[in-house]
């Protein structure tokens, strides 16, 4: 029965997620053995170990998990919305808007929460802009939305280039790291995790409607789905998820494109399974990528977006090859 066939892959993914988080928390540029890690998680360990694990690595792990999960789910939603397996959360210009917001804040010399808030505002602005422009003369199709989004994204790209060109040299590393995608140490994982959990709750009603919508808007309409309202819900939801993710970690690429795709190749096309699977797999992937980013050239750090790109491309190619 359906319920059971969902359970097994989800359980595997939950275990993978848990394992990845344990790995992430026990590895870093400073060595903390596994048994020491576990003892810290249960209240023991030296003060340094406690600080390392509880104050630094744990929040960062949660942030990475939330970001990866949000991006993967947003990617899956975008792909159904646009009826295009190559869509990703950024295709409609969202990360561009967030980037402009964040970079402007950095150029103005502010930091921390203001940069995040600015990024979020930029993402929302981009959402409304695309919404308004695509809606323009009435009829609103996935291809019209895609075209509008691509153009708006290009516009943001131009602004980003301008900001980079005009900023004083010493601000550039910070800006570049944001653009490449870097888990901000200052980010609070809680809103992201809550949002992710809420989305997973919505999976059942939302998921089946998405399955029907994936057949085509007319077929979906004929089966009783209110297509336009559903498409708006998906759009707003995907935008909200992406805006939250980008606020926490800049524009991390590939997770939103590769994870839903990978899962569909392996698990089929029932969105009620794919969406929660995306949340778990995306989170796991980003946690592992961030762990790598932290240790590959320790004590130096790489931005996590570099790792997701380097890992994402060959993985995807391999899976495509195997599925043939």
């Amino acid at each position: 029965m359906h319920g059971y066939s969902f359970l097994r892959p989800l359980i595997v993914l939950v275990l993978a997620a848990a394992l990845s988080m344990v790995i992430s928390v026990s590895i870093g540029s400073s060595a903390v053995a596994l048994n020491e890690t576990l003892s810290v998680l249960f209240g023991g360990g030296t003060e340094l170990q406690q600080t390392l694990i509880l104050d630094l690595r744990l929040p960062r792990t949660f942030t990475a998990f939330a970001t990866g999960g949000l991006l993967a789910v947003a990617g899956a939603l975008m792909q159904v919305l646009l009826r295009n397996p190559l869509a990703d959360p950024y295709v409609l210009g969202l990360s561009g808007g967030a980037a402009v917001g964040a970079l402007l804040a950095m150029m103005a010399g502010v930091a921390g929460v203001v940069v995040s808030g600015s990024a979020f505002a930029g993402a929302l602005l981009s959402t409304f802009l695309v919404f308004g422009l695509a809606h323009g003369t009435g009829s609103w199709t996935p291809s019209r939305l895609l075209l509008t989004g691509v153009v708006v994204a290009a516009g943001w790209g131009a602004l980003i280039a301008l900001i980079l060109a005009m900023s004083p040299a010493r601000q550039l590393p910070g800006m570049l790291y944001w653009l490449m995608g870097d888990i901000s140490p200052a980010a609070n994982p809680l809103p992201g995790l809550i949002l992710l959990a809420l989305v997973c709750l919505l999976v059942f009603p939302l998921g089946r409607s998405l399955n029907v919508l994936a057949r085509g808007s007319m077929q979906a309409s004929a089966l009783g789905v209110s297509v336009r309202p559903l498409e708006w819900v998906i759009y707003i939801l995907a935008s909200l998820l992406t805006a939250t993710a980008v606020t926490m970690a800049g524009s991390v690429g590939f997770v939103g494109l590769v994870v839903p795709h990978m899962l569909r190749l392996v698990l089929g096309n029932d969105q009620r399974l794919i969406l929660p699977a995306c949340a778990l797999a995306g989170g796991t992937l980003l946690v592992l990528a961030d762990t790598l980013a932290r240790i590959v050239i320790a004590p130096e750090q790489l931005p996590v977006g570099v790792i997701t790109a380097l890992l994402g491309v060959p993985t995807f190619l391999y899976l495509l090859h195997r599925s043939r």
Partner: protein
Amino acid sequence: MAYRFLLLFFLWISSASAELCSVDAIGREICLASPAERIVSLSPGATELVFSAGAGDRLLAVSAWSDYPEQARELPRVGDSNRLDLEAIVALKPDLVVAWVDGNSRAQLDRLSDLGINVFWLSPREFQDIANAVETLALLSGQQETGTARAARFTDGIATLKAEYRGAQPVRVFYQIWDQPLMTVNREELIGKAIELCGGVNVFGEQPRLVPRVSKEAVLEANPDAIVTSGRGESDREWLEHWKQFPGLKAVNLGNLFLEPPDLLARPTLRMLEGVRHLCQTLEQARARL
């Protein structure tokens, strides 16, 4: 010292042919028939060094961000780092252009060299390089007396500080250049050298890169005695405040979170002497609390 004699020797020889020559940081020899009177400086550091050499009144234009000394702020700008207005520079008909190896683009300025304009490249890596740069610029602009004197004061000042802090108790220091990403310096960098001069030990001194981007974890593990930064600008203690969330850090415990005046340590200029002096005093404070 040897370099000084060599310089005087060249001066003596070339005074006969009235040619002023010097080899720059990329190994090119620049020769001027007469002291430069139309100088363009392409980095804030170079601007300061030109003024230190006593040739500030011969500066026609400077790069953006040239803000010291005061007179520099009034001079016309010709762009910034690798976004220079080459046309404007050529139009000024300079007889000497002072460039910065890590700031300006070789390709762009070679265009100027091809047009016959003298481009002199600077790249101070040691304290001595700073003094030499001032002397060379003084030579090329016919201000030997001023320049040489100032350079000598600098060199003596550094030597004095070095002697003063030679036997000092080591203080382990983390110097923070930037917050996101977290950046510091290694011992090859001038600031790193300043730290060593003052009897400090740079906890990331052995890193291969000049400006490594490290993790917070690495800082926690290194557990320095003091954390020093110039912040983002005027009295910006924000970065230091961030470290207070780790009360286990020795530096936080001892209250060794120090804000150095920006610009004194950041630019390889004669002001660095004050910067190093200030840093040494800061580390003395830190040392006292150990």
